C-alpha cells in the first residue's frame, strides 16, 4: 500500500500491534494476511486480478523450489556450486525454465504485451509485479544453484512475495535473507522499533519535504519547457535527479524502517550514489537491490567481465537495456538504460588514457579536488540521462534540451518560482533540506551512520530531533489540499 496515505498511518500501527500480540508461530500468517489485505485495499477495483497474479507467482515459486529440492534429493547429490549432470540436470533446468517462463513471462505480458493491443493499453499492470516477480525469480534461480535453502513451508514463500513494506517498490530482496527471518520472528524490541521509526522519519522527510517540493518545479517544466526558459529547465533537470533520489531513497527508508519495526532486516538500497566518481560506481550504489539482481542473474550468467572486453561491453549493454525496459515500456526508458551502458563502456575504454594523462600532468587522482570534479561530472551525466527517464517521449526530450538554448535567466527572479509554490521560504527550506541530505550522505560515505549517531545522543537531543522532524514533515511536507496525490515515482514501475 501507499506509504503516503491516511490508511497506512492507521493500519500500520494496528498491524504491528497485532503482530507482537500474536504468538510467534502465528506471526508469519498474520503478516501474510495483512499483506494480502493491504494488497486488496490499495487497488480494490483490481483486487481479484492482483491477488491472482501475486499468489500464482508465489505458488510457482514455491512449487519450483519443492521440485528442485526433490530432484536434488533423488540425485543423492549434496548441494554444491555446480549443478548435477545428465537427466537430473536437464530436469532441473526444465523446472527452472518453466517457472521462470511463468514468472518473468507474467511480468513481460502484463507490462509489455498489453501495450501491443490498443484495447488493453488502459489496463495497469498488477500492483508491484515488477518487484515481486524479480524477487520470486531470484529465489528460484538461487534454489536451482543451490545457493539458497529451499523453503518447504508455502506460507513463507507467499509471504516473501507479499510482504507489504516491499511489495510496491522494493527493495528486491533475496529469499535467503528474508525467509529465515520470517521463520524465526524476533521478540519486540524498543530500540529496534525506535531505529525503525527513525528510518521511516528520514524517509518521509526525503519524500514529503524534499522530493515532492522539487516536483513542484519539475512537473510543470517537463510538461511545458518552452514556457519556462533555459534557466528553469536546467534547474529542473538537476532537481529531477535529486527528486528521484529523494523519492526512491525515501521509499526504501520507509520500507526498511517498517520492516525493522516488525523485526525484519531488509537490505540497503542506496549508498550515497551521487557521491560516485564514475557511472560504474554509481550503479553499485543506486538501487542496489535491482542492480545486484541484474548482476547476479543476467550479467554473470552471460559471462560478466570474464570473457574479454567485447563480451563485457555487450553484457553491460544487454543488462542496461533490460534495466531500461524494466523501468518502463517507452523508447525513452530504453535509451536511458543504453545511455548508462554506453557511459560505462566509454569510461572503461578511456580509463587507461585518463590515467596516463593524469600521470603526465601530475594530477593526483586521489586528491579531493580531482575526486570532486569526477563526482560533479558523474552527477551531470546521470542528470542528463534522467531527462530521458522523466520525459514522456522523445519529442519531449528534444523540447527539454531545446529549452536550454534560451537561458531566460530573469525567470529565476520574476516570480515564476513563487507562482509554482517555490516562494522564498519554500526555497530556503528546500536548500536547507538538501544540505542536510548532503551532510548525511557524506557521513555515510565515510562510514558514519547519522541515524545511529543521533540515537547515541542524550535523550533530550534525540527527542528534540524526532519531535522536530515529525512537526517539520507534518507542517512543511507537500501533502494534502492543493497538492496532487503523493505517490512514489518507482511505484509506477
Amino acid at each position, binding site marked *: 500500500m501507499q506509504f503516503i496515505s*491516511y490508511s497506512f498511518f492507521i493500519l500500520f500501527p494496528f498491524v504491528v500491534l497485532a503482530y507482537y500480540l500474536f504468538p510467534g508461530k502465528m506471526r508469519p500468517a498474520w503478516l501474510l494476511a495483512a499483506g494480502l489485505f493491504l494488497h486488496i485495499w490499495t487497488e480494490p477495483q483490481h483486487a481479484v486480478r492482483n491477488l491472482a497474479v501475486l499468489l500464482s507467482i508465489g505458488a510457482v515459486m514455491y512449487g519450483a523450489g519443492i521440485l528442485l529440492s526433490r530432484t536434488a534429493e533423488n540425485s543423492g547429490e549434496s548441494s554444491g556450486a555446480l549443478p548435477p549432470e545428465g537427466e537430473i540436470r536437464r530436469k532441473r533446468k526444465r523446472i527452472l525454465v518453466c517457472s521462470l517462463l511463468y514468472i518473468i513471462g507474467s511480468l513481460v505480458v502484463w507490462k509489455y504485451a498489453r501495450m501491443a493491443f490498443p484495447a488493453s493499453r488502459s489496463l495497469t499492470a498488477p500492483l508491484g509485479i515488477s518487484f515481486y516477480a524479480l524477487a520470486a525469480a531470484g529465489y528460484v534461480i538461487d534454489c536451482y544453484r543451490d545457493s539458497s535453502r529451499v523453503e518447504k513451508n508455502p506460507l513463507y514463500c507467499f509471504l516473501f512475495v507479499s510482504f507489504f513494506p516491499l511489495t510496491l517498490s522494493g527493495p528486491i530482496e*533475496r529469499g*535467503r*535473507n*528474508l525467509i*529465515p*527471518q520470517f521463520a*524465526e520472528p*524476533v*521478540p519486540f*524490541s*524498543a*530500540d*529496534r522499533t*525506535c*531505529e525503525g521509526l527513525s528510518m521511516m522519519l528520514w524517509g518521509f522527510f526525503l519524500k514529503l519535504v524534499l522530493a515532492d517540493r522539487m516536483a513542484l518545479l519539475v512537473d510543470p517544466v517537463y510538461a511545458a519547457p518552452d514556457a519556462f526558459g533555459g534557466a528553469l529547465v536546467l534547474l529542473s533537470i538537476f532537481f529531477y535527479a535529486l527528486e528521484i533520489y529523494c523519492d526512491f531513497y525515501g521509499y526504501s527508508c520507509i520500507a526498511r524502517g517498517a520492516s525493522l519495526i516488525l*523485526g525484519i*532486516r531488509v*537490505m*540497503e538500497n542506496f549508498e550515497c550514489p551521487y557521491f560516485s566518481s564514475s557511472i560504474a560506481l554509481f550503479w553499485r550504489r543506486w538501487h*542496489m537491490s535491482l542492480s*545486484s539482481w541484474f548482476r547476479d542473474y543476467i550479467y554473470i550468467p552471460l559471462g560478466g567481465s570474464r570473457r574479454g572486453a567485447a563480451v563485457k561491453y555487450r553484457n553491460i549493454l544487454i543488462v542496461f537495456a533490460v534495466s531500461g525496459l524494466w523501468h518502463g515500456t517507452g523508447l525513452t526508458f530504453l535509451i536511458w538504460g543504453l545511455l548508462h551502458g554506453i557511459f560505462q563502456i566509454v569510461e572503461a575504454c578511456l580509463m587507461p588514457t585518463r590515467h596516463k594523462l593524469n600521470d603526465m600532468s601530475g594530477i593526483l587522482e586521489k586528491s579531493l579536488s580531482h575526486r570532486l570534479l569526477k563526482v560533479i561530472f558523474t552527477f551531470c551525466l546521470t542528470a542528463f540521462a534522467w531527462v530521458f527517464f522523466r520525459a514522456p517521449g522523445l519529442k519531449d526530450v528534444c523540447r527539454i534540451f531545446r529549452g536550454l538554448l534560451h537561458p531566460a535567466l530573469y525567470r529565476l527572479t520574476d516570480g515564476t518560482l513563487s507562482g509554482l509554490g517555490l*516562494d522564498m*521560504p*519554500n526555497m530556503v527550506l528546500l536548500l536547507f533540506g538538501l544540505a542536510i541530505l548532503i551532510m548525511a550522505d557524506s557521513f555515510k560515505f565515510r562510514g558514519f551512520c547519522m541515524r*545511529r549517531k543521533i*540515537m*547515541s*545522543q*542524550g*535523550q533530550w537531543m534525540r*527527542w528534540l530531533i*524526532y*519531535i522536530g522532524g*515529525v*512537526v517539520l514533515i*507534518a*507542517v*512543511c*511536507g507537500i*501533502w*494534502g*489540499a*492543493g*497538492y496532487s496525490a503523493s505517490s512514489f515515482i518507482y511505484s509506477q514501475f
Partner: protein
Amino acid sequence: MTGSGQDMNEQKEIKTDNGKTNGFLQGKTARRISILLFWCLLALALFAAVRLTERKDGRRMHGSFFQEAQAGRIDVLIVGSSHVINGILPSKMYEDYGIASYNFGVRGSRPQITYWILKNALDYVKPKVVLIDTYYCTADYHYLDVPAENYDEEESSFVLSYFHDGIDPFPLRKNKIDAVRDLIQDKDLRKEYYFDFIKYHSRWSSLDGGDVLALMNRGGNMYLGADPVFKINSLAYNYPLLPPTEKLTEKTEGIIYLEKALDLCLERGIRPVLIQVPYSESEDDQRASNLVGSIAEEKGIPFWNMQYVPDLINHDSDLCSQTHLSAYGAWKVSHYLGSLLATYGMPDHRGEPGYERWENSVSAFRDEVRMSVTDQRDVYSTLMLLQFPEYRSVIYVNHGAWILNDRFALAQLADLAGVRRGRLYMDSGQVSDRQDIPDSEWQLDYQDSLLIVRDGPQQKPLAFLGFTEGFLDTPFLTGTENETMLHYLSTRNWSSLEMEENGTVPEEKAENLLSYYERSNVDVQILVFDNETGEFLGEVTY
C-alpha cells in the same frame, strides 16, 4: 547487503563512546513513562502546529461564541451571510435594548451552510430567538463541491472556502461530520473539513504575528461576530423594487434548507424569525425573497423583510457596496431589529455582571467610529460616519466640486442636510426609479457651493446652497459670489456653532483653520466636533 542467518534475537544496543548504553531510561517502568512522555510531547507539538497554521478567520470571528454560549448568555442568535455580519450589530441591540445577541454570520454563506452552522451552534446554545438571514436563497444546488447550473467551479471554490470559515471553529462532533457529509460529495475533500490541518498546514510559509498570538488566544472579535464596515467600498446600483406578489414559482435548494432551519428551531422550542437585511436587491433575489415570505406566512413564522420598511435606510447612502450595509446603515437596522425583538420580551441585560463583552462591544464601536471619522481617504466614508449622532460637523462643498455631480455623495449630503430622504436631482434631470421614494425637495445646481452645519442631533441642520438667502450671512463665510470659502473658525473659542459675542471673527492665521490661501484648491472641507463636549476632533479635506 544480502543478509545472513544471523541470530535476529540479538538486540543491537546503541552505545555511546564510553561503552555505556545511552538508550531509554533504565528499568521497565521508567522506560514506559519515558515513552509515554515522548508521545505526549509529540502530541503537544503537533497540536501547537495545528493551531499555529490553521486559518484564523473563523476562530477570529467566532471564538467568543463558545464561551458566551456555554455561560448561557446568548438570548438571540443571528445566522446567515455577510449581510448579517455587516448589517446587524449586537452592540447596538444591547446598547439600546439590553438584548444579548450573537452574530454567527458566515461570509458567503448559502442557506445550505447556514442550516448546518445553526445546527452545530445549537449544540452549545439554546437562544430564545434565532434570526435567520434569507440571502442567497436562490442557491439551487446541494453539494458545494459539485458545479451545477449557475454554479461554476470558481464560485464553488469560494463557497468551499466560506464553508471552512463557518465550520472550522466547531470541534469535530457528530453535527460537524453530518454537515460535511451532507454538503461535500468528495470523500477526500471531506477529510479537510474534519481535520483542517490537511488544508492549512501549507500556510507555514505565510505565518505572521497574528498566527502566533492565536496560540494563546481563544479568539473572537470585539463585535460578537459582527463586522461593521466603517468605509464605503463601492457604490450601489439600485434595482427597481418588485411587488411582494412577484415571486419564484419553485423552491430552490436554498429555500428548502431555510425550511429545514425553521423546523429545527421549532423542534427545539426556539422561536425562529426570517430576516432580509436591506441592500440593493436584484430582481431574481427579490422574487426568491417574496417566495420565502409566502412560505413564512404559511408556516406562521415572522419574516422581517426590511427592504420594504419605509424610511429605514437610504439605499443611496447607507450601503457600503452593492449588497452590504455601511456601519451607519447597520446601526440603524440594528436599532430597528432591537425594537422588534423587544416586543418578544427579551430581557434587558444592561448593567448586569457577566455581560462585559457586550458592554465592551458598545465602547469598541464608538471608539472605532471616532478613530475613523477623520481618517478616511474618501469623502463617501467620511460623510457616512458623520451621520452618527456623536458628532457635529461643518461641511463645505466648493462650487464646481466633482461631488456635486455625484449621485451617491449628493444622497449622503441630502441626509446630512436633513432633506427628506430621496434622491437629489441634478440639473440633467435624472429621475428616481424607485416609486416608493417621494421626490426630493431639494434640487442642486452643481455650480453652487454647499454649506451644511450639523449642530448636534437635537438641532435641525443648517443647509445653505449657493447664493440663497442667508448663505453669505453665516459667520463662517466670507468672500464674493465668485470666491466663496469658509473663512474662519477658531477652535479656541469653539464650543458650539455660534458667533463670538462681539460679532467678529479673529483674523489671526494661526487660529484660522481654513486659510483661503492654503485651501483654495480644496473641493470639500469638513470639520468634525464631539457632540457632547464640543471638542474639535479634526479637519478633513478632499
